[in-house]
């Protein structure tokens, strides 16, 4: 069965953005092993699921980068722009973007069905509200959390919808020289 993988930047204190969404606390000077980790994740998937709010910035940004061969992240951009996306929205009926469809059903039904379809795995990069709902509904099969060396004290959370304690299984910890530690968890199956 296809897995839903979460790749998310996080502060030491568990936030994924400042209250206004700012990501200025994130380290972007990744070392090669971390770049390889991300490439491996990207090669394991053939679908991106994304909330509408993040899609509005994410999709045009990578489209533009993919069209510009001098962009520093040109190769990654090609892959991101070329990967089909499923956008979850309460307001949009039709996708204004290339390679993107609007989901027809609610997120639980949609993901339950996607998992049974043939294909590679599925990845989600955010945003906070969208992921928060996936966490609450137990729809994440692998958490790849990129812990950045900063505490920001307040901000956006992907855990604040959890209303019943949730235990996870620690699978793997990788510390990178650039200061990021990737912690990988899987849910505890019922």
């Amino acid at each position, binding site marked *: 069965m296809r897995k839903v993988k979460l790749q998310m930047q996080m502060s*030491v*204190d*568990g*936030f994924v953005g400042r209250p206004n969404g700012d990501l200025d*606390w994130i380290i972007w000077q990744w070392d090669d092993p971390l770049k390889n980790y991300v490439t491996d994740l990207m090669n394991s998937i053939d679908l991106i699921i994304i909330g509408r709010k993040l899609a509005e910035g994410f999709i045009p940004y990578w489209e533009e980068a993919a069209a510009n061969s001098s962009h520093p992240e040109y190769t990654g951009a090609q892959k991101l722009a070329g990967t089909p996306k499923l956008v979850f929205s309460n307001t949009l009926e039709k996708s204004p973007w290339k390679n993107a469809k609007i989901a027809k059903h609610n997120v639980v039904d949609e993901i339950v069905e996607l998992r049974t379809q043939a294909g590679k795995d599925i990845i989600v990069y955010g945003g906070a509200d969208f992921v928060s709902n996936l*966490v609450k509904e137990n729809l994440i099969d692998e958490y790849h*959390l990129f*812990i950045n*060396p*900063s*505490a*920001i*004290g*307040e901000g956006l*959370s992907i*855990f*604040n*919808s*959890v*209303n*019943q*304690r*949730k*235990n*996870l*299984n*620690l699978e793997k*910890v990788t*510390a990178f020289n650039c*200061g*990021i*530690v990737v*912690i990988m*968890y899987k849910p505890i199956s019922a």
Partner: protein
Amino acid sequence: MRKLIVSMNVTLDGFMSGSNCELDWHFQSWNQEMSESLAQQLSNADTILMGRITYKAMAQYWASSVSDPFFPREDLPFADMMNTHSKIVFSKTLKKANWNNSKLINGNIEFEIAQLKYQQGKDMIVYGSGQLVSTLIPLDLVDEYQVWIHPVILGNGNALFKNLHDQIKMKLLGARTFSSGVVRLNYSVRS
């Protein structure tokens, strides 16, 4: 100058305890390997800082360990350090601190910590003491964090990092994984 180290157990969502002060999630993922690592850590320090509530709980527990024939043998070296290390208790209400080698401080915390840092000796470590830690962090008095991240999400609770006037930038010193699912991340604070 000696360092002030905060060693704290937290949930994946950054809480030191639940909203009703629950700590039971500590015990489900604590193991002997972690106790040994904690003892190693404590041997690099010679002073323990604590608040009133943690002091009262610890003083009773560790002071009685030496005369308790059923106390686990493997924890005795740790108990010995707890009893012999210097303890500095920060409280405005406590009248006296009788536990061996304890000192009560109720004055200005910034001044007192600065004094302690300039004294000769090994590092100082803060255990538990959520309220004390919440005072030390926004005053930029912490030099190192050892954050024990437990594999649990509570959804709400008492955050370790709060009331920050600014982002705390850190340098990763190391990461250690325990078989119980806990990850300890060590950071120094960048000035």
